[in-house]
């Protein structure tokens, strides 16, 4: 396990290094002055030369890269070209909002995806299986932006159950401290925290469900086919022959074995989710990294694109490495695979 850990850690560091080189080089790829592209300070700014110097632009490229890393770790991500506000300040409020939405959606998908897959597998070729399979197939085929529009139409416009924009009704006057609305409500001294929490949940519900839909159906389908495979195995028959009850067979043998290939795909489910977060945040006016990144692309706000890209890629990277580690920790044969590769 230690070897796996060391391998994954070095993989993480190498990829992070390549990622940082890539985002650093973006300042040169983008049109315009590389100093402006990385710092957001225009060439006419009185402090331009000092900033260029602080970022190592009077020296060779290696120096510039090191200065870039220093700025990155110090939280000096430059200024937005659009409104000259520090990117880090904005990022600090937006990242937790995205993370909150993504984690809740992922948790929802994990809570419901595999169980639905198991139910379908247990009732293979029966009514429950048909219902779940058709749902997961249609969920898999519907593009997420369309699902979002459709759910707004049905649940917000026709039924009037949920709001469609933002994290909370702004009249609650919850001061954004962390950016995560639930933590902010907890931190606020509002006497109506319970009502605010309920309101925030209402706002969270629709984007969370739509966001969860893609990883959820992915996990359902994966679990179903894995469980069907496992159920056919001789050791399952053997377990029944030894007189184990249905639930004992299921929880001792079927579930752990079926989860192994599912766990392997958990990383890609998360990747899908982060990709969809861009669209969902835009549609539901969620003040997170995704909508910020999309807008900055429209407005050619290069320092923001650089920062946003770096952080989303890092997030995906971390999630996948974590998933690998959990996978290796739970399943010895996976550990073997990691050694072999």
């Amino acid at each position: 396990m230690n070897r796996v850990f060391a391998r994954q850690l070095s993989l993480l560091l190498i990829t992070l290094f390549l990622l940082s080189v890539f985002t650093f080089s973006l300042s040169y790829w983008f049109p315009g002055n590389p100093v402006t592209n990385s710092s957001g300070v225009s060439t006419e700014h009185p402090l331009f030369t000092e900033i260029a110097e602080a970022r190592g632009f009077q020296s060779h490229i290696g120096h510039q890269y090191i200065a870039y890393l220093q700025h990155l770790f110090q939280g000096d991500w430059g200024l937005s070209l659009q409104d000259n506000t520090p990117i880090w300040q904005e990022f600090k409020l937006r990242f937790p909002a995205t993370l909150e939405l993504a984690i809740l959606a992922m948790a929802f998908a994990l809570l419901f995806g595999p169980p639905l897959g198991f139910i379908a597998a247990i009732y293979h070729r029966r009514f429950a299986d048909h219902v779940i399979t058709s749902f997961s197939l249609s969920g898999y085929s519907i593009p997420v932006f369309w699902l979002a529009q459709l759910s707004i139409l049905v649940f917000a416009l026709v039924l009037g159950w949920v709001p469609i924009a933002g994290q909370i009704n702004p009249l609650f006057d919850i001061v954004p401290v962390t950016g995560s609305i639930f933590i902010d409500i907890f931190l606020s001294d509002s006497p109506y925290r319970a009502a605010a929490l309920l309101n925030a949940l209402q706002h969270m519900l629709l984007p969370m469900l739509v966001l969860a839909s893609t990883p959820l159906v992915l996990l359902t389908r994966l679990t179903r086919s894995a469980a069907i495979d496992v159920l056919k195995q001789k050791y399952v028959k053997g377990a029944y022959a030894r007189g184990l009850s249905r639930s004992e067979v299921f929880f001792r043998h079927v579930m752990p074995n079926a989860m192994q290939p599912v766990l392997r795909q958990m990383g890609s489910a998360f990747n899908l989710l982060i990709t969809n977060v861009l669209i969902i945040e835009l549609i539901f006016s969620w003040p997170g990294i995704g909508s910020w990144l999309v807008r900055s692309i429209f407005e050619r706000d290069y320092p923001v694109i650089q920062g946003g890209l770096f952080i989303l890629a890092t997030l995906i990277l971390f999630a996948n490495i974590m998933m690998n580690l959990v996978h290796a920790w739970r399943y010895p044969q996976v550990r073997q695979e990691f050694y072999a590769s």
Partner: protein
Amino acid sequence: MKPNWVNAITLSITALFVAACSPALPPEHNGVLYCAEGNPESFNPQLVTSGTTLDMTSAQLFDRLLEYNNDTQDFEPALATAWEVSNNGLVYEFELRQNVSFHSTDYFTPSRSFNANDVVFSFNRWLQPNHPFHLVSGGNYPFFSATRLDRLILSVEALNSHRIRITLREPDSSLLSILASNFSVMHSQEYAQQMLEAGTPEHVDQFPVGTGPFYFRHFRKDVAVNYSAHEHYWKTRAATDNIVFRITTNDHKRMLMLLTGDCDISPYPPARDVEWLDQRRDIQLQRSLSPNTAFWAFNTERVPFNDARVRQALAHAINRESLIRTVYHEHAVIANSILPDSSWAHRAYPSAYAYDPQRARELLAEAGYENGFSMTIWALPVQRAYNPNARVMAEQMQSYLAQVGVTAQIISYEWSTFRRDLAAGQHDSVLIGWSADHADPDNFFRPLLTCAAKASGNNRAQWCNSDFDEAVTAAIRSNNQRERRAHYYLAQQILSEHVPIVPLAHSIRFQAAAADIRGLKPPTFGGIRLQSVYKEPQNKQERMP
């Protein structure tokens, strides 16, 4: 096997849905949600030109010396209770209101009420290039330089604590209109001084302090601006406790949010949905005429447009009503003068611009163009409130002109090139327009059609007429409204005879609100006023499809 826990979770999710249906907002959090169409650029109206920013700041946070009342078409006292103009029209004296309190916020507590120092500070900031605040936040005051007020005003001085005197370089009767405009707001000199001493002068424009009906709470970019009612407002306290501007740039999204109750008021609904919104019982739709004019200007320096008969003929050749229907979707009214119908100096000359292709052909024959000619129509390449789609308009005009034998070619460059070549007078004719900065009719004449405007490159018709110039100059030198009106009538008559421009349309601004919103007035000159707006207290409103 029976997955009971699945049932349990499904049940709790359903319970959340059901709970979500009950009204969640406690009574103390009452307020009105206004879906604004963009982020404010600044919280100081002196620094901006965008209508979005003005809507969100000026009338909500600040007061002016006087107000323009659209119904009576006259000025009303605001922070100035009375004013006098000297006989030569050069000296204006204003008596200021007593006991007007500034906002108390978490970043500023005023120690005194509004007085002459605040007025002097508010003027001198943009008037004096060496003022300590002049260069703060960029140092551009577009409205005051566009109206040339920075050159018109010689000095602003305090006579005593509640009396000020403004001295002009030359008489200008549009001064009161400019002072009543949304840009001429009064700041707190005391607050500015504190910020200057603290080394953060730019906070004056980011964390505003005014005397208006609401005070600033906080602003989160792309999310919302929160204001609360100013308890010691010198006029009636605002009808609602809180106002939140939710930033929603997409017009379709704004409409959806209005329908779902995520906002109470939404400006500029999508053109195609206006009719549908109007029929809904849960939505009230208000409209007001915007102070702008779309027009078709001829380059009167070029042959054949130097002949007034040709210009008259072209005016008769196009069917403006059909153009307006196609381009504006009922979002405009036909313009029969350069001045919008709402102005006190407006006089319409519909016959001069009526659709009459027969008359057009006769006039062209008279001018010696019975076989027609070919010309260019420059179509504005950007979307403007006064003309949402100049290109489509030009295409339709092309077919009308073809019917009288004139071949028109449409030209549309990228905006900066377009403007540069237009100022250089390289066009035959252009579809463009003008949005007024303030309520005075002068704003539609002197900046647009005088010989001076021609020299500065803003006269799209390259037209210079001494009678017209005389009329509008006489009007601005006079302070007597009856006299001024006579001059403006004459000016409009000259325009209808010479036709340097064909007025096309005045656009209509729409504003949609939930049915339970009370006290909402249609947007007037330069913006919205939310102090009288409140939400009818009732249980969850019915949402009717």
